[in-house]
């Protein structure tokens, strides 16, 4: 068996007295599309944010591509990495947010080239060419010079996906990428994500789009109250869940 690309081991996270994650363990293999589902407040976003260290974990560990994230082990103790080291580790993951979070003072093209040029120090013209290619891939070549405020929600989210891909990440994280969109705009974003999944990208997707999960996900994880209740092949978890809690959630959502 090959090593998983992402290994989450006994990760706990508290906000004050509230336990948002309780000893969560999970593997994601390279090339796999994993969908996280669960009720509001169950900890899906928190788990995703722990993987790219927007939220520091309290205990446990996350390994990405064999590298322990956020801390370094030395003589039986853990030491926090510096801001700079954490920033470097983040380059391996791309993140797409529920509310897009595009940079409003930059055009679509500038949003995409910002990371490659400023952070990775790539040549402006190479970055521009690649950014145009990415815009074509998400179907927005003609919107290169538009500012985010001039784009629809669906278009903004597709630019946000292109911005994350421009860093050439090995893992893409999606936090409810379509739940801030009008219903008629959901499809265009899911189409881009499906194409990305087919291209072999490893993806962790928090979503309420069960149709998307059924069609694209290799595995589905159901979370509740900060724990993973059930994880398995998409068809099994969504088609015939074993756990009562999963059954209750699915029947409430599907109705």
């Amino acid at each position, binding site marked *: 068996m090959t090593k998983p690309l992402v290994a989450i081991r006994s990760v706990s996270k508290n906000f004050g007295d509230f336990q948002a994650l309780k000893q969560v363990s999970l593997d994601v293999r390279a090339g796999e599309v994993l969908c996280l589902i669960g009720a509001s407040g169950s900890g899906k976003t928190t788990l995703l944010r722990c993987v*790219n260290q*927007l939220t520091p974990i309290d205990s446990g560990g996350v390994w990405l591509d064999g590298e322990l994230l956020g801390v370094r082990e030395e003589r039986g103790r853990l030491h926090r990495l510096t*801001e*700079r080291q954490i*920033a*470097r580790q*983040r*380059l391996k*993951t*791309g*993140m797409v*947010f529920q*509310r897009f*979070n*595009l*940079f*409003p*003072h*930059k*055009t679509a093209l500038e949003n995409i080239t*910002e*990371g490659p040029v*400023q*952070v*990775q120090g790539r040549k402006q013209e190479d970055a521009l060419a690649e950014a145009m290619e990415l815009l074509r891939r998400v179907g927005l070549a003609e919107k290169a010079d538009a*500012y*985010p*405020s*001039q784009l629809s929600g669906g278009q903004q989210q597709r630019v*946000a996906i292109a*911005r*994350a891909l421009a*860093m050439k990440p090995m893992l893409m994280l999606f936090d409810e990428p379509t739940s801030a969109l009008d219903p008629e705009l959901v499809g265009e974003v899911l189409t881009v994500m499906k194409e990305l999944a087919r291209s072999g990208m490893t993806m962790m997707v928090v979503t309420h789009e069960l149709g998307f999960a059924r069609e694209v996900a290799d595995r589905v994880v159901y979370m509740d109250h900060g724990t993973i209740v059930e994880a398995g092949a998409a068809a099994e978890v969504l088609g015939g869940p074993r756990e009562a809690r999963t059954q209750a959630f699915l029947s409430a959502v599907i109705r």
Partner: protein
Amino acid sequence: MNATERLAQGFPDLSRMMVARQPHWMRWLTATAILAVLAVIGRAFANGQIEWSYVGRFLTVPAILEGISNTMIMAVLAMALGIVLGVVVAVMRLSSNPVLKSVAAGYTWLFRGTPLILQLLLWFNLALVFPTIGIPGLWSVRAVDVMTPFLSALLGLGINQGAYTSEVMRAGILSVDVGQYEAAQAIGMGRLRTLRRIILPQAMRVVTPPLSNEFIGMVKATSLASVIQYPEVLHNAENIYYANSRVIELLIVAGLWYLLVVSILTPLQMLLERRFSRGTLQLVR
């Protein structure tokens, strides 16, 4: 009879009537009253003890022109120092480091809490406290030589301005959505680069109007530096009227110059605002 006609029955047809213009009697009345008052004031000044020919003559004498240029140089440099300090202190204040936070809060407290003219006098008279400045044994200069009117005014005005600007900048930084920090972090940006490339450009849009306000205040605050012999326009005007006793005429000359400078600043502010509102939807009128 169709549906529209049926619904119209029993109602007067308003569709072809114009809305009549309202007569604004009160506006006419108040405007006339104000003009009358202005006329009275104007007459009083015209007939008063003012030699208007002096005003015209002294408006462009070398000492006054030099003074207004010194005023502008000081205002620009002190404002630049104030903005740099303001950004640094705002960032310190927002950091999670308690030491930085307290230093920033202490700075704001000290320099906002004392009169500007007192601070200027303190800087200018620093030599009374520290006769020499330097690194003991290596290098030292006499404080009186260093603390020229120019440097005292620059430090006094700039450092005081920084205390106010830091609060403006803090408001601007806080106005930027947290999602922007997270998006920047997610593409691997460090804290400083995020601030410089993502946060400050967006904060500038919010802080341009209050900062322009502060700058206009700064142009006029430079006149306080006349007490420490900095040759700005008011100081030079005073020197002239000590000699020729045309006090009011020269004060009017200085006043006209301040008005002119401030009038030029308003369109500049508009240009800046347009520059920083890039990407935001403009209100269409």
